[in-house]
């Protein structure tokens, strides 16, 4: 019994960390740009496909090197960097043009962008309509207090913590972070301080997309599988976590993710036939939270001044 409980707790923490990696990006982009980048989930889930592609390409050209951990890690790192760049490219091609458009316009444009990304993955990746198995890059288990913990779970949690800590470091301790915070507080005032908002937008997109990519890669590893339309659910849940926590608040996004992941694992473990009702419970929770805390758990309450 205790075994099972610990197992579920572990699932909760792993899932929560993965959701958090994606939710943080939503929150960061909203804070800086004031638009909801709805395709963020789709951008994040391009990463596992890039990684798979890199692994397969390497395997065919250097059969000797394939399979080693170092090569695998290199592929993952490459996919994460490329996904970050993809975010920058999308900002340049599409999102830039909706910077001053009405909020709803930007929302619809990014939803359409998400559709385009999904379809591109489906068509450009060989055999993209079918699910592909995704390696867990670290196998094996360790015994801890009588519980077997898959090494992968540990690595996922540690990486998530490191990535989020890195983000906090960038935001709070570096010059770039200072500039990002300045732009998110007041775009015009930041410009007067000779900060180029355009440059900051690109940097933010790179950071958010790269962190999302880490989440995407671990999500694929967790599911042991990746499919082009995973990003619909992942994007929705990541967005929900960010909103429940309060858009623009990084700690909020993390708490929101843990909350949603907690309910997710709880429902799947306890409620009969829970796996098919999990989205119902998750989104009822979202509605409930927003009814009682209209701007999320840690969102800034908007005070309207006349």
């Amino acid at each position: 019994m205790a075994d099972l409980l610990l197992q579920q707790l572990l699932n909760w923490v792993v899932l929560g960390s993965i959701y958090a990696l994606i939710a943080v990006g939503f929150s960061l982009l909203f804070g800086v740009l004031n638009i909801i980048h709805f395709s963020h989930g789709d951008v994040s889930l391009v990463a596992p496909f890039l990684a798979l592609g890199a692994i397969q390409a390497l395997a065919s050209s250097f059969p000797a090197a394939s399979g080693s951990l170092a090569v695998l890690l290199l592929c993952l790192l490459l996919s994460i960097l490329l996904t970050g760049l993809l975010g920058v490219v999308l900002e340049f091609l599409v999102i830039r043009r909706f910077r001053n458009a009405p909020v709803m316009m930007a929302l619809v444009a990014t939803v359409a962008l998400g559709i385009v990304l999904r379809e591109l993955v489906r068509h450009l990746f060989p055999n993209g309509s079918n699910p592909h198995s995704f390696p867990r890059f670290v196998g094996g288990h360790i015994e801890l207090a009588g519980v077997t913990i898959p090494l992968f779970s540990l690595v996922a949690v540690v990486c998530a913590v490191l990535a989020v800590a890195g983000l906090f470091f960038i935001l709070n301790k570096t010059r770039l972070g200072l500039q990002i915070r300045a732009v998110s507080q007041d775009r015009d005032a930041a410009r007067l301080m000779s900060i180029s908002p355009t440059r900051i937008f690109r940097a933010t997109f790179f950071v958010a997309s790269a962190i999302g990519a880490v989440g995407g890669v671990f999500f694929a590893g967790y599911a042991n599988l990746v499919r082009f339309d995973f990003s619909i659910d992942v994007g929705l849940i990541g967005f929900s976590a960010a909103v429940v926590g309060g858009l623009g608040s990084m700690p909020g996004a993390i708490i929101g993710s843990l909350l949603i992941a907690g309910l997710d694992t709880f429902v799947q473990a306890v409620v009969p036939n829970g796996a098919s009702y999990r989205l119902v419970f998750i989104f009822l929770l979202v509605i409930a939270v927003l009814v009682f805390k209209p701007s999320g758990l840690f969102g800034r309450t908007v005070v309207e001044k006349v």
Partner: protein
Amino acid sequence: MSTVAKTGAPAASFSLTSLLIVVACELIGAAALREFLLVDDWRVIVGLLVVFAIILVAMQRFPAVEHRIEDAFDTQKPAAMVLAIIIVLGFPFTLEGNTYAFHLCVIAQLYAVLALALNFQLGSANIPNFASGASYGIGAYVSALLALNVGLSFWLALPAAAIAATVAGFLLGLPSMRTRDSYLALVTIAFGVVVNQLLNNLDFTGGPNGLVGIPVPELFGHSFSSPLVIFGVSLPSQANFYYLSALLVAISILFAGRLHNSRVGLAWNALRADELAARCQGINTTWYKVLAFAVDAFLAGFAGTIYAFYVGFISPDNFTFLTSVTIMTMVIAGGMDNILGVIVGAFLLTLLPEKLRVFSDYRILFFGVTVIAFLMIRPQGIFPQRLRRYGER
């Protein structure tokens, strides 16, 4: 509130050029639609789209042309309306009995109703709603369940489903009292997902298999599954539903126009402009917000019922988050708070993915690219929202 009524040009002077412009616009529009519906060659489809894009760019570049056309329609309102009715009534006879074209028309008209319904919220009051697909689904499922289990006829199921959808819309509207903007958008997304997942998992809704064998409506002993014979011309059975949905579109337009010109429409516009200021003017913002949700759900319930009885088979896949996004895109791409724009948006976005079938697998990709391109070419929508004009008449 007579002072509020939107008026046409100051004096409706008769002008031959204006009349000609109106007639030319409507006929060219109808001809283009017919061509688009019937054509199979992908080169012609792409060509028509390119022409459409060029017209949009031109309208963007030369606003004077746009104003001239608008003026013409304003001064020749009765003539424009009569001609439009004649075109809608006569359109089926030009389709050469092509059942696929009829089917597309019916679906496009149902989406036009949905888009008009959503327009009350998104366009008039600027309230995001990603749950119109859910209201559509509730309408469809309630009417289908009533017909299958209770044996209710289509004509009784129609109001019943609309009432059920309205109640659901009302419930959805309640959180809107507290949340707003992106947060409200998420509440509606969540509602849509919950409804979809429940339809997908509950037993009495048939689960993922949906409901099958919804009976065909009848009117005065004429079954809607039999061909429609008018003036000795036999139209395929879809024509029945063509006229039914055209009637619904007409009612919706009338409804939308009346609401827009009423105190309610004005209150919604005030909400859009500035909620706080609206409240200071004594507008009960909560009530008008909830009302917008209820009105949207009401019309969506109608559309859902007609869809269920037309297709005879419904499943949760018809009413997903993406359905809601599509309806939303229709309103935004067509032009917020502009009745004609919303209808054009609905037709374009219904027909586009169907006509892009020639690209088989790539059609959804093209669809997404086209939507983004249109939003970039004309950020305010195909027919932008126009300023209210106040004055006599």
